[in-house]
């Protein structure tokens, strides 16, 4: 089973829920941190990293000996990533989406592919838990290709927990698509509710069952609960504001290590998800 943990709004507690849920389970589990722009799960899980792979994407290189400046490559490129400029052809690697169109269209076979680094994928373990995350190279704009590479580490034989990035656009979709369940972590504030509605919209487009965790559940108003009721979204867990939790988080400590009574609550959360998803 794949559980993707998303939120719409940032900072609602996705990573807290993902990591504490993972370490609370008795069964084999892997955590894939797909928030490749700002991955944080490793700060809590503290895995021993065993493998680091650099991930690249193909981008064009032009052999000017063969090029006749016909301009077909610039014509097919939807991303303005290759242009004919005077007597030369200039590829802009950072704009390239790696579709291979220029390579296919070039009548002189003057285009070959080289690589642009997207970032790295690190894989490791902590006790029985498998950990994988992507780290987008600073300056790289496109995170979805790296997220898709992280998701290739999914093992069908065990539970996969995905820590998704905030928002509702393509990186989030890449982190939720194909999941069996999406757990949306929200907070009962106007910002939390507004972004939750967007996230629920995204989950609906993908047709995945979902449920809510309301974090800092006593710091705000009752509008999120009202919305959940109207939309028939199950509230699977509530985490009241507790300065001890906030401080544990700030130090990089797991809630279940500092307050062991939470372990059973995360287990209960998992059982509730299991009932809906299966």
């Amino acid at each position, binding site marked *: 089973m794949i559980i993707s943990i998303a939120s719409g709004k940032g900072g609602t507690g996705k990573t807290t829920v993902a990591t504490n849920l993972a370490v609370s389970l008795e069964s084999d589990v892997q955590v894939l941190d797909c928030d490749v722009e700002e991955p*944080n799960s490793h700060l809590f899980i503290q895995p021993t990293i065993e493998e680091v792979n650099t991930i690249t994407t193909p981008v064009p290189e032009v052999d000017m000996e063969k090029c006749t400046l016909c301009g077909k490559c610039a014509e097919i490129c939807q991303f303005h990533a290759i242009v004919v400029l005077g007597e030369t052809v200039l590829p802009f690697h950072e704009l390239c989406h790696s579709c291979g169109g220029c390579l296919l269209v070039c009548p002189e076979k003057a285009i070959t592919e080289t690589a642009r680094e997207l970032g790295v994928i690190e894989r490791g373990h902590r006790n029985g838990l498998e950990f994988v995350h992507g780290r987008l190279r600073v300056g790289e704009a496109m995170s979805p290709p790296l997220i898709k590479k992280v998701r290739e580490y999914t093992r069908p034989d065990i539970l996969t927990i995905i820590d998704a990035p905030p928002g*509702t656009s*393509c990186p989030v979709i890449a982190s939720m698509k194909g999941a069996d369940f999406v757990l949306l972590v929200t907070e009962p504030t106007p910002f939390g509710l507004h972004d939750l509605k967007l996230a629920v919209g995204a989950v609906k487009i993908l047709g995945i069952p979902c449920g809510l965790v309301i974090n800092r559940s006593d710091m705000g108003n009752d509008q999120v609960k009202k919305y959940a009721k109207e939309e028939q979204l199950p509230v699977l867990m509530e985490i009241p504001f507790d300065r001890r939790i906030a401080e544990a988080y700030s130090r990089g400590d797991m809630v279940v290590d500092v307050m062991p009574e939470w372990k059973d609550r995360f287990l209960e959360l998992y059982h509730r998800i299991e009932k809906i998803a299966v």
Partner: protein
Amino acid sequence: MKEIVIISGKGGTGKTSIIAAFASLAKNKVLCDADVDAADLHLIIDPEIRERHNFESGHTAIINQDKCTECGLCLDLCRWNAISEDFVVDQIECEGCGVCWYFCPEKAIDFPLNTCGEWYLSDTRFGPMAHARLDIAEDNSGKLVSLIRQEGKKLAEEKHLDLLLTDGPPGIGCPVIASLGGATTVLIVAEPTVSGRHDMERVAELAAFFKIPAMLCVNKFDLNPSEGEAIEAFAKEKNIGVIGRVPFDPAFTKAMIQGKTIVEFDSRSEGCEKVKSIWKNLLQIIEI
């Protein structure tokens, strides 16, 4: 004209609450919400929309089943595996590269322009505002961010205003990169947690990569003063101006619930006092 862009790396550190407070304090400015993916500033600012425009960007392939001979060339060429065995394009997976459309021997593929959001020019009780909404599950957020900042600048020029206050998106990817180019300065709002420090370091590196001067304020500082100090020490090492600390103050959430800035809600709250002093420092540094 000058532009201050507020970013954070990590989401939920308080960017929008702080920029809303600045909206109350700043004079002669245009507000710009560049967090087009999950825009929240309008929930406090309550803009009255004056102009509404479609945001059109990118294309998606659609196979015309009547013309398709199922030759399979598009399947072979598509690097996104966006075309199914029965020749239907997955609209979410389609990257909009146009390779299938270009090479289809039967010209059986349409490639229409997408409408993937809306952008607005509005009046608010704090002055003019440019903002937008990207449709759910869309890409091209970077292009919309660039567009909305440009429109914000145009508004400022028309109205002879000299400052653009821009609320940026979280992360370090495409929309954040689009929110940085040409900014006078970025203000990084960090939180004093291990995640906050990790993410702040990456977004500071991003600002340096694009050679945009950066400043820092740590929000909810008292939650973990030693992490807060570590973040400030990192900033100083990287020549990032440390311009203030904001305490954890529930007044921010209370103000948000009432649709007010903290200045409107309780201008004597500790949080508000600190934001005022940060704003003063900011103005001095960018010389307005």
